[in-house]
């Protein structure tokens, strides 16, 4: 009798434990709504153009000269924009250019995305640079217009074949008396929108 009672008690305790222990008020379907929206800041291109390196030897003072265009053109491998990840999961890329100039000339920077076969794709981006005040002065800082340059998702879709980026500094006619430095700095902010 006593033993039967104990079994009954055990059974009741077991039942209470089982029924009382449960996981309530949880909704795992919410996982479908999880969106990761980190923002990554990474350096983009940089370049330094020092007049001293470009004045040809042997020219007299106060003489005008031109720098050959190909010296200031460059192509960099940059396939991030063209990746599936970028097209699917990047909300936008913001490109910030900050150019410091002490050379008393105006310049222009252009860049263009290219396909693997070097075909231009998308827009040609232009950044006008104000003239500096000469060597030893505080640099005049120019930014891109607009600042930043926004590559939205639609643009990124357009650029899905991009593998490279071509840059060019367009230089007006220079003078052997000019001194100073043109310093291009830039960064890209990647706005991720990643749905699980």
């Amino acid at each position, binding site marked *: 009798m006593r033993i039967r009672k104990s079994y009954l008690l055990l059974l009741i305790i077991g039942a209470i434990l089982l029924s009382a222990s449960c996981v309530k008020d949880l909704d795992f379907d919410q*996982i479908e709504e999880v969106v990761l929206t980190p923002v990554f800041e990474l350096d983009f291109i940089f370049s330094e153009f020092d007049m001293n390196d470009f004045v040809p030897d042997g020219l007299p003072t106060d003489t005008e000269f031109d720098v050959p265009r190909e010296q200031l053109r460059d192509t960099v491998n*940059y396939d991030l924009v063209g990746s599936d990840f970028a097209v699917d999961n990047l909300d936008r890329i913001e490109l910030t250019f900050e150019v410091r100039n002490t050379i008393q000339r105006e310049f222009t920077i252009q860049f263009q995305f290219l396909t693997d076969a070097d075909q231009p794709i998308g827009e040609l981006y232009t950044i006008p640079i104000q003239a500096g005040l000469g060597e030893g002065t505080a640099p005049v800082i120019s930014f891109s217009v607009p600042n930043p340059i926004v590559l939205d998702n639609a643009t990124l879709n357009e650029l899905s074949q991009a593998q490279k980026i071509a840059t060019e500094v367009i230089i007006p006619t220079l003078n052997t008396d000019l001194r100073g430095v043109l310093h291009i*700095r830039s*960064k890209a902010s990647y706005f991720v929108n990643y749905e699980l």
Partner: protein
Amino acid sequence: MRILLYTCISLLGYSLCAQNKETLYDFTDVPQSLLLNPGAEVNFNYHTGVPFLSQIHVNAGLKGGSLYDVFGDDGRNINDKIENTLNTLTNNDYLTLTQQLELINFGWRSKFNRNLYYSGGLYQELDLIVYFPKDFAVLAYQGNQDFINQPFRFSSVSATAEMLTVFHFGYNKKVNKKLTFGARAKLYSSIFNFRTTKNRGTFTTIETPQGNNIYRHVLSNINVSAQTAGYASLRDIESEDMNDGAKQVLNKFLGRAFLGGNLGLGMDVGFSYKLEDQWTVTGSMTDLGMIFYTKDVESYQARGSYVFEGFETPITEGNGQDILDELETAIPRDTINSSYVALRPLKLNGSIKYSFNRYDDGSCNCFLEGEDPPYLDAFGLQLFTQFRPRRPQYAASLFYYKRLSNLFRAKLTYTLDDYSYKNVGFLLSTHINKINFYISGNNILEYSNLAKARGISVQLGFNVIM
């Protein structure tokens, strides 16, 4: 990513937290107390566990948060909840899971020396601890934009996982009326092991107003590594047929479980000491040992430093710049097959107990001949520490033991630990003839909603005790 998340969740879902078994410690009515303290008092002559059913133990803990914090059905946006939880968690928060299944457990009193009790057996254990890698969780979830000039530390990545079987044999000696001493030898057979605990280095995005570019991205003194044992050969199992693949894995696991894996040695020691008739002090040290990983070992390591400042243009030297190539040269990744040794997580237990209300109405045949009848009530204090990769875990418990009748014995505990300040545990042990059944759980106040619980431990089992 999704799979990882689901795995974490399902682990949490199954688990009902650390290896503290506060209810079972020094609960001398149940032979499994000898596994927590080989020097526990033994008041029986023979015991055997019901194979596979003598101890089923699950223990899971989540320090710093609960499932409810993220998945609660409270109408708030899950992304806000993740962000809140992320902000409250630190690198010292962790998830633990311990599961044990006793396959065999037996013991007997020596015929030649009635003060000696031998016990042995075999159990399987799964032990997992994953520290919350806060720095990289933040990097993945928020990016580096808001954390310029702040280092992301690789040391925040720390985890160990181990599955093993333990063969053990111990002896327990009642030295005199006051002192009982015991020791247990253990042979570990590791089924698999994964550990990444000594990671160093930082990733920092530094703002450089006078530098070449707007930032410098610095990977500084990177030294990250992970050791695995028992993983490489599983990866090599290539089978089209899922069932066949599963069978091969199972066969490998079984082989390793029975001494075919990486072997290790360890010991437990413990004592019980009666200060006076009613006061008892106990202490034990369990799993003092190590495993030597020599077979099927594969480790991964990456060391070096790297600085990225963007793409220089026009490029003056070479043609083209591939940052991934540069990165791999600067921080080479190696796969190594050298042996390693890892310590088992050492556990320390201690208690002081005051017993009262002696059972001496003469109706009880519940004690050994020549001994005094047992006390019906006891209360006291227990302490527990377990050594973990980053720092030890601690717990302190107040307990009350009650012998309700010959059939029922119970213990109630109140524990302060890393997970909560309202952890109430309960153990009930029934002794019907020679058959013993015990069931125990902690955090029972949280049973009405395990989702809000930060840690739960359950153990139950059947024994035959004479």
